[in-house]
């Protein structure tokens, strides 16, 4: 960032190096958490971490992932509460003597830009009460719902708003994409 304009090669290179470093640190931490403090485990760990870093850089979308801490602060309680509701909802329907299901398909057009944000959004839909993402075509998500009487649109819109806040997507950018 010190050397030149945002589009200069040195800037891109330094950004790339920073992304690799962040991933390397995260994967090292993952390995440490899973394998424990035994130093000998790093014989496998170092190659695994390097491999994971290279693979994730290759597979990641070119748009850099930015997570806002304020967004995460709001998103995590929202997510936990909604997952808990989802679990209770399924429990109620599974254990009830009456048939409480009224399933159906709903189509939703998301304003989130392509890439990490949209993928994250589609995956989180499946963990919320009564909804399951069944198909993603461009910006159109097909959602299967357990009960068509649930306020699905409102729930999905709220989730979309939270994901946009989490991924630092401003409303202007949201509108234009």
């Amino acid at each position, binding site marked *: 960032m010190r050397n030149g304009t945002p589009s200069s090669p040195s800037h891109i290179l330094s950004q790339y190096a920073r992304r690799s470093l962040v991933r390397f640190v995260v994967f090292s931490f*993952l390995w440490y*958490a*899973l394998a*424990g*403090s035994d130093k000998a485990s790093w014989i496998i760990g170092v190659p695994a971490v390097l491999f994971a870093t290279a693979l994730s850089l290759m597979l990641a979308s070119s748009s850099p992932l930015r997570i806002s801490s304020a967004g995460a602060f709001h998103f995590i309680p929202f997510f*936990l509460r909604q*997952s*808990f509701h*989802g*679990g*209770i*909802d*399924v*429990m109620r*329907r*599974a*254990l009830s003597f009456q*048939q409480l*299901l*009224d*399933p*159906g*398909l709903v189509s939703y057009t998301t304003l989130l830009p392509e890439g990490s944000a949209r993928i994250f959004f*589609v*995956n*989180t839909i*499946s*963990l919320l*009460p*009564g909804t*399951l*993402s*069944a*198909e*993603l075509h461009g910006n159109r998500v*097909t959602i*299967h719902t*357990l009960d068509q009487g649930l306020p699905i649109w409102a729930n999905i819109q709220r989730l979309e708003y939270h994901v946009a806040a989490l991924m630092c997507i401003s409303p202007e950018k949201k509108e234009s994409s």
Partner: protein
Amino acid sequence: MNILYNSGTVLIILGLPFFLSGTVGLIRFPDIYTRLHALTKADNVGLGCIVCGLALQSGSWAVTAKLLLIWLLVLIASSASCHLIARSAMHKNIQPWTRS
């Protein structure tokens, strides 16, 4: 310490009905899509409760981090595989069960 241990036990016991209802849903629900609902949601909450309970009982930060990490990885794996199974069912033109 004892309070932590006992509240851990309460959380673990709280998690069990979720696993049970996930399995009951898997058996009782009418089609592939509704069964996916039962498995992903109920099991994730059940696992969350059990992970939190075990973390409280462990009394160690390293074990807590490992347990939370396992929960996070299961969340990612289950929501991604749930989406993939549902998508493949849609591509095979499996119609969702509807109340009629």
